[in-house]
């Protein structure tokens, strides 16, 4: 199934309606955040440390639930998604973190095959998808290497291969270049662009302003848990929240 086939009609990929997230009575991580990301878009989310970028990504990934407001991803209101449906929802997404998160005891290929075997794919399908994903990130020649034998850039590319191996409709990345030098960071961003060109919506949280400027994509800025006013003005859907079933 291609990303295009797995999308829910022509609705936007991400819609947030006045989303708030509190951790306890005194810590407001996000306040009244509303925006829309269209299908096939490449969007950066930026802001200083503690602005709420990671919290927002966790909400999109349904690792956290909003305190109030609605979040619609790929046509599904994930705030009301039953727990049993969450894994199936996550299979349509890919996630990349700053710290790579690879299984150290498995090879590059083993990492990719492992997650697919958990999902019940046949060995033939696992091989095909793993090879394709590794080829896309330019690591098919290192498939038998252990993560510890790879450079930082290669480890991050493996993590990206892991994120795209299930052919997601939406790729979320949380500070994916945080541990990399500028050259490698640019390389990773080019890779994201290539993935985006093939139809996957890409949503990257980063505080690397130079990188964002060079890439030239749309930018959303969070400041103390709120979307910056000039971004909010652009977000036409901040007005009313249509209720969608999970």
């Amino acid at each position, binding site marked *: 199934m291609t990303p295009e086939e797995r999308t829910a009609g022509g609705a936007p990929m991400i819609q947030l309606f006045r989303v708030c997230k509190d951790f306890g009575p005194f810590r407001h991580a996000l306040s009244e955040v509303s925006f829309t990301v269209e299908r096939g878009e490449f969007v950066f989310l930026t802001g200083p440390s503690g602005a709420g970028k990671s919290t927002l990504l966790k909400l999109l990934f349904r*690792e956290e639930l909003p305190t109030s407001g609605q979040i619609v991803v790929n046509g599904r209101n994930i705030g009301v998604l039953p727990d049993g449906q969450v*894994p199936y929802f*996550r*299979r*349509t*997404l890919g996630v990349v973190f700053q710290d790579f998160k690879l*299984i150290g005891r498995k090879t590059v290929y083993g990492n990719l095959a492992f*997650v697919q075997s*958990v999902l019940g794919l046949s060995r033939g399908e696992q091989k095909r998808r793993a090879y394709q994903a590794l080829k896309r990130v330019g690591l098919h020649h290192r498939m038998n290497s252990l993560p510890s034998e790879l450079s930082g850039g290669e480890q991050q590319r493996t993590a990206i291969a*892991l994120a795209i191996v299930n052919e997601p409709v939406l790729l979320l990345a949380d500070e994916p270049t945080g541990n990399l030098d500028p050259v490698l960071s640019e390389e990773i961003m080019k890779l994201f662009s290539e993935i985006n060109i093939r139809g996957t919506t890409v949503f990257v949280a980063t505080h690397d302003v130079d990188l964002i400027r060079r890439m030239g994509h749309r930018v959303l800025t969070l400041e103390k848990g709120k979307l910056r006013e000039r971004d909010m003005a652009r977000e036409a859907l901040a007005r009313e929240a249509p209720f969608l079933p999970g």
Partner: protein
Amino acid sequence: MNSRYLFGEAWAIAKSGPRHTAIAVVLIALAFYVPGLFALLSRNLGRLAGSAREPAAAILTLDASADARGVAARVTEDPRVAKVTIVGSAAALERFRRAYPDLGGAIADLGEAPFPPAIEVSLKPSAPPRAAREIAVAARSWPGVDAAESEEEFAAKFRDGVRLLRGAGLFLGGLLTVAAILSVASAVRLALDLHRDEIGIMRRMGATETAIRAPFWLHAFFEGLAGGALALALLYATYRGAAYFLSREPHPVLALFWVGFLDLPTALALPAVGGAAGFLGSLLSLSKSPKS
């Protein structure tokens, strides 16, 4: 989720903490060995109880030098007695050989008769229930009579003894099974910690909770199964070792009941219950595992 993933990961979990896996298996083995030993003893005692040739109301055990015929004649004077049977040392030995052919070798080399002569007393159907006890009490003071017990007394004591043994076995077994379940739960908890990153990756990639937990369930089940099997092997080794010892150093009492191993259903129950205990331990541990 496919079987390759399931068994592969269960094996990987076992390998990731070999020491803890080994400790859990040994603890389970010990937990099932102790009640297994009680089951072995009570089974053999039960077999001894069931091997009596014909029911006697009272048994008078005589001194080796006693006048058996004289004592028998004195017993028959009681109008409630229907029949007396003198069982000499040789006859008792022959009975034993017939009842326990597998122990024949153990007592063949005995220089002297291991069983004292005895008189078995049968009562008339019209005799009251207390008659056997009264005859036994009276006979205890007769010359040549070493001991006298009514069958009722003996059977009650024997039944009580076996019951006590089974009760102790069940109690200890229950206690040790709980300990085994807790030790598996703790081993699984440790394995969860060791695989926290992998679990995180699996959840992120959309693995269901069942797919994530299944290898841990399987691992714990096999841990319990291995522990139960080890307990069974240890029990068999104990049985064979004791039988070998008794064949070399025959003991008049121990040789009486150390004659058979556990029956097949009981033997198979050990690994099966071990597997169930392991599975239960993993359920206990994984029920506390946080979801993301």
